[in-house]
């Protein structure tokens, strides 16, 4: 312990504390020496519990070097204004972490407020402000805070490593003097972040990977990582739900999925399942029949074990062998890569802290969509669940992708419609009153042509906007006809003919130029 560190601590700085995780088997820590020095740059004083990072290869000395002060557990909880954690607070040996929290302090970590009501009440009693790292909304701006994705990435990688270590063969194919080795066949079920990470990891070990997902839109992502996508169609139903997550589906749909997967399981050596539906138990996609049909020595890693598992035979937190198939139901995969997982998690937590810090103080901005979504308690007041965002306006040609920010999407105002009706009345009334019949005929043609144009143009692909403009430009050279009609009106010489001739001249430049240039442009487009 260096005294200089403690003595130079400015007393007016807010204190960020990083306790050791007490959940049995948890090796991760919510900050790394790298993020500690960045947190200090935000204006905080940082306390780290003795031994907090030991299991994640971040020894106390490294934290100290980064400017943190190493303290005892009691001292940390008593002093910290902001506590950074990985797991939700829990009770060990009769002491609950929530009760240790300083009155009015801020807690950042996984909370799972929907499943942990009692915990939230307990924290509320401490007048705590709580931000849940498990409630980051899925929008682009929030990606750097997305702890779940970061952990899913680690889990997906680790799932392949777990499977490979329990699989008695190579993953990659080889031709050796001792004979030919076929590459392992890997099936990944659910192509979310974890699934995609698993595909990438399995591919890099040389396996042949196929992936299944009910959301057809992920096909390209699977293929971009070198996986083969297993298409699945069922009477027009897709598995894509709100926010880009999968959704719960009908029984018949599930049965069809199970049947398809059973067929693929029989052909595969390693199956990694990652299928989750938000707020629901994991779907049982792999039936015991499918497992019986697998080759002996095959391995299943079930990343959904915590939510009940994707296979019928998964046992939570255990590795079991059923019908010759090893089924891995471990739920602490990120913790098994504590160093990597801590590094990534610590960065997401740091990013959040950076967002909410104003002049060295945590100051949560509830008007911010991201912070609002993550806020569970504010000074003990329940803020969860957040109000639902305005639904996207109906009638859009394609629903926008989930993670696109729409900073200024305004609700449709009734005024354009009212003004339109008013304008139509203003134009139509005098026409009805005094319009000559032939004028009305022309107006009819005009209005109908506008409507036809409106409908035809909406289908044009953006890539063709320039040719479209130049072709419409050529077509508007039709005014040439006007010039001809005017000039042919019986004049011999005179002002009218001269005007008409010039009009015809410029309009024909337009016609010839427009069509030719469009043709030139279009000839260049090739597949």
């Amino acid at each position: 312990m260096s005294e200089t560190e403690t003595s130079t601590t400015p007393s007016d700085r807010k204190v960020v504390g990083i306790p050791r995780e007490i959940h049995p088997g948890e090796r991760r820590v919510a900050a790394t020496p790298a993020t500690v020095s960045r947190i200090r740059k935000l204006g905080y004083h940082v306390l780290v519990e003795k031994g907090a990072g030991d299991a994640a290869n971040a020894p106390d000395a490294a934290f100290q070097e980064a400017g943190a002060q190493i303290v005892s557990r009691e001292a940390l909880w008593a002093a910290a204004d902001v506590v950074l954690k990985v797991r939700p607070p829990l009770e060990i040996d009769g002491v609950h972490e929530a009760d240790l929290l300083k009155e009015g302090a801020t807690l950042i970590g996984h909370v799972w407020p929907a499943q942990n009501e009692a915990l939230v009440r307990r924290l509320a009693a401490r007048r705590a402000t709580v931000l849940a790292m498990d409630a980051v909304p899925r929008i682009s701006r929030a990606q750097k805070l997305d702890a779940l994705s970061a952990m899913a990435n680690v889990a997906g990688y680790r799932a392949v490593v777990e499977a490979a270590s329990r699989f008695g063969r190579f993953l990659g194919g080889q031709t050796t003097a001792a004979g030919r080795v076929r590459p392992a066949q890997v099936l990944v079920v659910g192509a979310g972040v974890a699934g995609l990470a698993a595909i990438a990891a399995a591919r890099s070990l040389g396996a042949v990977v196929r992936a299944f997902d009910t959301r057809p839109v992920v096909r390209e992502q699977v293929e971009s990582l070198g996986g083969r996508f297993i298409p699945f169609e069922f009477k027009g139903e897709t598995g894509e739900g709100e926010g880009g997550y999968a959704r719960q589906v009908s029984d018949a749909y599930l049965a069809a999925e199970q049947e398809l997967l059973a067929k693929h399981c029989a052909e595969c050596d390693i199956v990694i399942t990652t299928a989750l539906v938000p707020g629901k138990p994991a779907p049982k996609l792999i039936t015991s029949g499918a497992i019986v049909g697998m080759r002996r020595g095959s391995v299943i890693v079930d990343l959904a074990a915590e939510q009940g598992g994707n296979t019928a035979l998964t046992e939570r937190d255990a590795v079991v062998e059923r019908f010759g198939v090893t089924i891995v139901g471990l739920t602490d995969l990120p913790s098994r890569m504590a160093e990597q997982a801590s590094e990534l998690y610590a960065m997401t937590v740091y990013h959040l802290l950076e967002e909410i810090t104003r002049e060295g103080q945590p100051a949560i901005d509830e008007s911010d969509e991201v912070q609002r979504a993550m806020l569970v308690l504010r000074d003990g007041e329940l803020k969860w669940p957040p109000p639902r965002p305005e639904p996207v306006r109906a009638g859009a040609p394609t629903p926008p992708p989930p993670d696109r920010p729409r900073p200024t999407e305004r609700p449709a105002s009734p005024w354009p419609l009212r003004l339109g009706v008013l304008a139509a009345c203003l134009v139509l009334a005098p026409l009805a009153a005094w319009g000559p019949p032939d004028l009305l005929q022309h107006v009819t043609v005009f209005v109908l042509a506008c409507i036809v144009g409106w409908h035809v143009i909406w289908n044009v692909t953006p890539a063709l906007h320039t040719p479209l403009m130049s072709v419409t430009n050529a077509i508007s050279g039709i005014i040439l006809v006007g010039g001809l009609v005017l000039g042919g009106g019986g004049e011999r010489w005179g002002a009218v003919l001269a005007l008409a001739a010039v009009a015809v001249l410029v309009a024909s430049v337009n016609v010839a130029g427009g069509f030719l240039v469009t043709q030139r442009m279009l000839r260049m487009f090739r597949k």
Partner: protein
Amino acid sequence: MTPSILLTAYLVASVLFVFSLRGLSAQHTARRGNLLGLVGMIVAIGVTFAALLWPVPDARGGSPTPASPEALGVLGAAMGVGCLVGAFVASRVAMTAMPELVAILHSFVGLAAVLVGIGSHLRAARTGEALDLAHEIEVWVGVFVGAITFTGSVVAFGKLRGTIRSKPLLLPGRHALNAALTVACVALAVLALRAGGPVATHALYAMTALASVLGVHLVMAIGGGDMPVVVSLLNSYSGWAASAAGFMLGNDALIVTGALVGSSGAILSYIMCRAMNRSIWHVVFGGFGEGAGIASGTSAGTSATGRVREIDVAGAADLLLAARSVVIVPGYGMAVAQAQHALKEVVSRLEARGTRVRFAIHPVAGRLPGHMNVLLAEADISYEIVKEMDEIQEELPKTDVVVVIGANDIVNPSALEDPSSPIYGMPVLEAWRAGKVIMLKRSLGTGYAGVDNPLCYKDNTLMLFGDAKKSVLGLLAAIDARAESAAA
């Protein structure tokens, strides 16, 4: 010739035009669409000319007056010369000069509408009959729209060529000025319709002048970066002008065609505006991008603390060779430097190595809607790898290297992060989410919106300064050198 033949031919032409526009909705039918438009035009012009030779009773009930041989000769000669000039220009123009060409062609339609309108008025006045109110209103509307289109397009042409400064000219009280000009035009119309005779003619001239000033002023107030919207808006105006001419001459072919073009341009403008998160009314009434000049000062101040990381051609080539997926974001700078052909070679080299290369096109990249697509097509780059913003946005985080060539505002993170930025809220290509960003840029200057770009200061951004074409050629040489040393 009977009126029925004439009208049937016009009907055929109109239908052909509709199918022409419809054909342009997809790549594989686009060329046929253009051809249909051409056929429609030939039908319309041919039958009109034939009607001059063998006159039809006027739709307004007049007895047929055959066109004099002199008039036919003059009109035919004008048409011939016009076609030759048009064909010559169209076959010579460089694809990068396309925006200017389109703008100046719009002005021609506007000019023709003005001339036809004035001529139509003079002819009606000549007969000495009492003025037909409906016809006069049509003339006034046609000339008004035509004059705005004409001068507005000329100014747009000048701005695109760079002969007129592209910075918006923001006169104090410009909305009041616009309103005053419009009111004056209406007042002149009322005066003329009441007085009739030579007064009406002079009033029409005066109104033409006022509308021309209005056209100049409306476009002068718009900055160079917002030209795609302006050009498509003028495209729309030129259609309305043609339609108005159709009304005054009682010609349905003109009305229909003008309406098609008008709504096409209006939709394009609307799409562009939506892509930039702007209100279309700001563009219609001019002075859009206001506040950009003021805000650029403040945002430059906040990001001046950033550090720029530079990279040389060899380093950039190494990055590209090591990448498994590359996305290229082109902007107007690529067009100016004519870098697309060299770029095509780089893309071929990378693709030959198995790298996945794609292009990401922002809806308002360049100076025309779809401008980048045309340039890339010119360079023989397959449209299969040219993606729209929405198609590629989600792929950017999974991309190893994003190469930004001559683009600035369309990759500016301020649009999402800085509410004080004038482009805040505009959807942008989120290039910074990729592993590395190589930004080819002439200097650290601001884009057309006059906004500093924090992307330059991001940790994963590497700047490759210099002329875009030279840089790309340098990249190509470096890539080839690596390949040779690997082979040796």
